[in-house]
């Protein structure tokens, strides 16, 4: 029996954390599908280091499965992956899954290219959760409402470009200091998935949340390419089958917890603003050009156009 290690940063509660749900199902399914040829040890809560450390351990082969999110994904050593940080690419989890699935030629090629270039194999990409904007005093329903707001963003360039395009000032505040900064007014607002807004209790210090769903936080399950290619065809298939099953758990828990999360935030006294398709389109229209220009400059016109042509295939369906 071979020991495998899996790690991620969420706490060890599969009913509330999508990645935890994924990992627990993956563990049981791999063990079942391979007749207990593998034993997966789970290390939740970032016990083996933060996401960048996870990437390093995977790339050396000392770690077999890790889940990393957008920001780290983009700095993997394959810059083009940063394309997923662009705003308003996806309308729903289903939209994400259809367009970012590994059975899809464009994505399959991307995954192979990443593996060849970095030694890291992306097994699957997941819709971790849509990011929403929250603000203290300003009700945000149109792009114009954002003018002059100081908004905390991650140190991710397209997110900053997006804020600038909306007339807001992007401010990089370390996550550890974000609560205090929102409370005291160092920044007027921030953007995060509902689960983080609840975990960090931002609802205590924010008056409004707008369901802008401007960026999907993407999760990637990664493994070591050399180890992966060294597996037998059957074992690879068994793991991919387990991944497919586990992905269902991830997305289901994610979708349910998003829904409950928004309700919790509302119950905590935050005014939640839902946006209709026209309102969302106004946000998209205001931000798409500057962020796309940045992407073209960073990743090359060919790749960006290729990606948007690929995405266009799914527009009509979602």
């Amino acid at each position, binding site marked *: 029996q071979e020991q495998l290690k899996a790690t991620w940063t969420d706490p060890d509660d599969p009913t509330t954390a999508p990645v935890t749900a994924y990992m627990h199902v993956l563990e049981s399914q791999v063990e079942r599908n391979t007749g207990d040829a593998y034993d997966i040890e789970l290390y939740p809560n970032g016990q083996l280091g933060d996401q960048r*450390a996870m990437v390093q351990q995977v790339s050396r082969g000392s770690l077999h499965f890790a889940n990393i999110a957008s920001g780290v994904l983009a700095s993997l050593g394959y810059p083009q992956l940063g394309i997923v940080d662009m705003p308003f690419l996806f309308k729903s989890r289903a939209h994400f899954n259809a367009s970012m699935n590994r059975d899809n030629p464009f994505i399959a090629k991307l995954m192979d290219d990443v593996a060849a270039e970095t030694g890291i194999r992306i097994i699957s990409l997941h819709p971790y959760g849509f990011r929403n904007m929250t603000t203290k005093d300003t009700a945000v329903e149109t792009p114009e409402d954002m003018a002059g707001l100081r908004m905390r963003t991650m140190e991710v360039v397209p997110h900053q470009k997006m804020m600038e395009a909306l007339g807001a000032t992007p401010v990089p505040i370390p996550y550890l200091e974000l609560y205090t900064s929102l409370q005291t007014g160092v920044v007027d607002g921030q953007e995060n998935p509902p689960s983080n807004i609840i975990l960090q209790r931002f609802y205590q210090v924010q008056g409004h949340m707008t369901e802008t769903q401007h960026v999907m936080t993407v999760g990637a399950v990664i493994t070591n390419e050399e180890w992966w290619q060294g597996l037998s065809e059957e074992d690879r298939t068994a793991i991919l089958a387990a991944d497919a099953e586990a992905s269902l758990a991830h997305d289901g828990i994610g979708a349910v917890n998003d829904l409950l999360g928004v309700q919790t935030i509302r119950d905590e006294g935050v005014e939640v603003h839902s946006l209709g398709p026209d309102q969302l389109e106004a946000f998209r229209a205001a931000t798409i050009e500057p962020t796309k220009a940045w992407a073209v400059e960073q990743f090359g016109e060919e790749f960006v156009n290729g990606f948007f042509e690929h995405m266009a295939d799914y527009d009509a369906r979602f």
Partner: protein
Amino acid sequence: MNAAFAWMLVSFGFLTIAGFPLAFAMILACIVYFVLAGEPLYLVAQQFFNGIDFFTIMAIPFFMLAGELMVASGTANRLLKFAQLLVGRLRGGTGYVNILASMLFGGCSGSSIADIAALGRMQTEMMTRSGFTREFSAALTVSTSIKGAIIPPSIPIVLVGAVTGTSIGGMLIGGLVPGLLVAIAMAVAVFVTTRRQNIERSGRKTAREAVRIVLASLPFLAMPGIILGGILSGIFTPTEASAAAVGWGFVLLLAETKFKPDPKLLWRIFLRSATLSAAVLLLTGASNVFSWVLASEQVPALVARTIFAITENPILVLLIINVFLLLWGLFMDMLPAIFIVLPILMPLTGELGIDPVHFGVFATFNLVIGLITPPYGTALFTGSIVLGIPIERMVKHMLPFFLAAIAVLLLITYVPETILFLPRLMDLL
């Protein structure tokens, strides 16, 4: 327990006792572990680096630098005169002046050692002149210094927040009331032990002198106001507040030197802050490697199981933790406890239903007490060197102050509101 892990603990224990620098004792012990356990060695470098790769820890060099700038611009001198003016006229007044001056200086500096180094000789001299024995004066000087490490700004609290991921802003402000309580408890201890002695009072000051002293100390008394006020009014984050403290310290030094600060002095101040904080940062990084191994060996869960096997009563669990940390403080340094022990104990707060900010502050305070207890106490050693009094002669007089500190510890452990009241009032929880 597997052999690799056992060897790691043995080598760490040996190296520590043999006087190996703590940061490298952790690193070498982890190297031993990685080699024997067959884990890749690059983890040493990687986790070392990652352990200091976050913004909030920058408060440590900044608070150190701010403290140095304050000392160089004559803070200690002026705060002492200010304290004399307020409480010097009481019977045994210089004892209270000592306590009050340490408290005010604690609002500028982030550590006990700085407090002793900056104020110690003056405080002891002043008390001896008014009739206290040198030993008693030194004992009080060393004991009151624990306030510097708990009243905001506080370097130990920043470290605890950094390694356990607890709100640094909340804990910094949560340390204010415990710091004041220590001042009161120590004042009571001075009152009880000296009421039958014949101690001189300070001379009366004229109104003009009084006004001059107050005005001269105002810019220094403003330091805590700038730090806390700046955080609470949303001008800056707690980490940025430490940089603001440096800015204010620099302004004071400019004013003190009539805009002609000695460049050599400035260079030495920067060098000392950078070097000493580098040593602390390397310890932080090394403890991250150590924690990686502890997590990988599932030690936190083991400790939790062990404690809960003894009792599940939260009151008793907290007592066990306090006794353990006090025993640790008797023999060991505060830093390894912050870096190794607290990350293991912090997860217990969830199961006990205590606020991490509450736990972080009282556990830090507990470890700070260890700085003044023999046989091993850094503040005790510093005091002995700076004041030129052998430890054993000082320690005899420290019992009342030690008891006062324990009383405060019990109070803040079992009455969480003493810590949580202020941060809650300010919505920082």
